[in-house]
C-alpha cells in the first residue's frame, strides 16, 4: 500500500514536472488570444486625427473611417483642404485611392501597401492593423515581464508563421490587466528594427480597453514620428454595405 502511494506520488510529480515546461507555450498563446479578443471587433466606425511630425514641419490630418471584419475598410479625409475628399477603400489585399483633384482612382496592391500613407510613419497596411488577428500570422513566446509607464506587462516575442508577413518579428509589451499593447517593436526578417509603436492613452469601452492615442516611429526615416488620435469610436456598429464598394469612391 505504501509502495503504491509512493508510485502514485512519483507519477504525479513527473506529470506535474512535465506541465511546468509546457506552461510557457500555452501561456504566451493565451495572452495573444486575450489580446486579439480585446482588440478584435466585427465592425467599427471612428474619427481620427493624425499629426505627422517631420524635421521640416508638422502636418495635421483628420479623417473618418469604417471597418468590417479583417479585410474591409473605408476612409475619407476631412482636412486639411489639400486632402479633403480623398478616399481610401481597402478590400483584402487591394486598396483603391480616390484623389479628388485629379478625379482619379489609383489602385495599390501587395507590397505597395507597405508604403507610407499620406507621408506619415504608418503604412497603408499599418492603419488596417487593428483588424487583424495576430494569432493567425504569428507564433508567440513569452520572454518575461516588464513595467511600461507603471503598468506591469507581459513581454511577448512573435515570429511570423505565415509567408510574406510585413513584420517578421514583433516584440510586444502587453498590459497584464487590460490585455492591450502598450508598446511594440516591429522587426524585419534580417533583424532590423523597422518601427516602434507606443500607446499613450488607453480608454475603456465596456469590457474593451482600446488605445486612443498612439505614436508610431518609422525607424527608417530620420527624425519623424506620427501621432494618431482616435477622437471618436464605436464598435460593432451597423455599416451600410455599399460603404465598402468602388462606387463609394466616386465623385461627390
Amino acid at each position: 500500500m505504501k509502495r503504491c502511494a509512493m508510485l502514485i506520488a512519483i507519477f504525479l510529480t513527473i506529470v506535474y514536472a512535465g506541465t511546468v515546461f509546457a506552461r510557457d507555450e500555452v501561456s504566451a498563446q493565451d495572452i495573444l488570444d486575450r489580446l486579439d479578443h480585446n482588440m478584435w471587433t466585427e465592425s467599427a466606425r471612428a474619427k481620427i486625427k493624425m499629426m505627422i511630425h517631420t524635421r521640416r514641419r508638422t502636418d495635421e490630418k483628420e479623417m473618418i473611417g469604417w471597418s468590417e471584419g479583417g479585410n474591409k475598410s473605408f476612409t475619407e479625409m476631412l482636412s486639411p483642404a489639400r486632402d479633403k475628399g480623398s478616399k481610401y477603400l481597402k478590400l483584402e489585399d487591394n486598396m483603391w485611392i480616390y484623389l479628388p483633384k485629379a478625379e482619379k482612382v489609383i489602385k495599390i496592391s501587395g507590397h505597395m501597401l507597405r508604403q507610407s500613407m499620406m507621408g506619415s510613419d504608418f503604412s497603408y497596411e499599418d492603419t488596417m492593423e487593428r483588424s487583424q488577428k495576430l494569432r493567425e500570422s504569428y507564433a508567440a513566446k513569452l520572454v518575461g515581464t516588464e513595467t511600461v509607464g507603471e503598468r506591469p506587462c507581459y513581454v511577448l516575442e512573435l515570429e511570423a508563421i505565415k509567408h510574406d508577413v510585413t513584420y517578421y518579428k514583433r516584440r510586444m509589451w502587453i498590459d497584464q490587466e487590460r490585455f492591450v499593447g502598450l508598446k511594440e517593436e516591429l522587426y524585419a526578417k534580417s533583424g532590423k528594427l523597422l518601427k516602434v509603436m507606443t500607446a499613450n492613452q488607453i480608454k475603456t469601452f465596456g469590457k474593451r480597453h482600446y488605445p486612443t492615442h498612439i505614436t508610431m516611429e518609422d525607424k527608417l526615416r530620420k527624425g519623424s514620428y506620427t501621432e494618431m488620435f482616435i477622437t471618436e469610436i464605436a464598435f460593432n456598429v451597423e455599416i451600410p454595405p455599399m460603404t465598402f464598394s468602388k462606387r463609394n469612391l466616386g465623385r461627390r
Partner: protein
Amino acid sequence: MFYLLKMALRNIGRNKRRTALTLSAVVIVVMLLTFAQSYLEGVINDVFANYVKTQAGHIKIVHREYAKKEIMLALDVPVEDYASIEAKLEDLEEVTLVTERLRFGVMLDVDGRTKNCLGIGAIPEKEHTIMELNEYIVDGSYFRIGASEMLMGSLLADELDAHVGDTITVVTRTAYNALSALNFKLVGLFTLGFTYIDESTFYIPLDAAQELLDMEGQTTEMFVLLTDRDDAIGVAGKITSLLEDMGIADVYEALPWQSQGELFSALSSSRVMMGIITGIILLVAALAITNTMLMAVFERTQEIGTMMALGMKSFQIVRTFIWESVSIGVLGGILGSALGTALALLVQAKGIDISSATGNISMPMGNVIYTDYTVWHTITAFLYGLILTALAALYPAYKASQMEPTEALRSV
C-alpha cells in the same frame, strides 16, 4: 640671294605634276586645319551654350544639401521663399534674368504606357527668353502660367503615344511623401534637338508643380543669367554677400557655372580633344609633305648632280630647296586657307546634321552642328602650313646636299 629664289620658282614650274603633288598635300592640310578649328570651336560653344541654357545657367542658387541629392531629384532641400531672394537680385546690374525651375522625377502613365520622366515646373515666359522654347514647338501651342497645361518632348510623346489635346494625369509623391495627382492638358510638343531631353522631359507651369508637390513658394533651383558669362564667379560672390545679409548664406549657395562640375570638365576635355586632333593632323601633314619632298629629291638626283657639277655649293642647294618648299607652302597655304575658310563659312550658315550620331549622348550637343569661324583660324592654319612645309623640306634638302656629284650624275 634672290637669284636662288628665282631659280626655285623656275624649278617648281618646270615639273608641274611633281609640284602639284606637294602642293595638294599642303592645300589639304591647311584646309583641314582651318575647318577643324572652326568646327571644334563650334561644337564646344554649342555644348557650352546649350548646357548653360538647359542645366547650369551662369549661376544657380540652390540649397547647400541639394548638390549631393540632385541625382535623386530630391524635393526636401528646396529654396524656400525664393521671391525675396529674387527681389534682391534685381539690384545687381550684371544679372539679366532670374527664374525658378522645379525639377522632379515622376513615372508618367498614359493609358498603361509608362516611362520615367523629368518634370520641370517653370515660368513659360522666362523659359522662352532663355532658350526660345516657344520656337521649338512642333505641334500644338505653348504652355501658360496659371493653367493646367503641359509641354512634352516630341520623342517622349511618341513613346507614350500621347497627342496634343490629351489629358495626362501626373501621379507622384509630394515633397512630404504623400500621394498626389493632378490632371494636365497636353497643349504642345517640342523638339529641342537634344535627344536626351526630347525623349524624357516635360514642362508644366511652376505654380502647378508647386501644388502637385506640396511645395508652395519653393523651388529646387534658382536660375540666373548674366550679361557676361565670364563674370559668373564675381557675381556669385556678390550673391553670397546678399544671402549673408539675409542671414541665409549657411543654407543656400550661389554656384557659378565654373563650379558646376559637369560643365567645366566637359569644356576642359573638349579643348584637350581639340588639341589632340590638331596635333594628329599636323603629324600626318608633316609626314605627307616630307614624303612628297623626299620623293622629289630622289627624282631629281641628276638635276642636283648637274647643279653641283656646275659649281653650286651645298648650302646653296639646301637654300634652293627651302625656297621651293616655302613657295609651295605659301601658294598651298593661300589656296588651302581660302578653301578651308569657304567651307567653314558654308557650314556656319548651313550646319551639318549629325542626329544619327547623337542618339545616345547625354550631352547637350545639338543634332545640327554649326562651325564658329574666326579669322584667327585661317591665320593659324596658314602659318602652321607654311612652317610645316619649310621644316619638312629640311631633311630632303640636307640629303640632297650630301650627294656626291659624280654619284648623282651616274644615275643617268
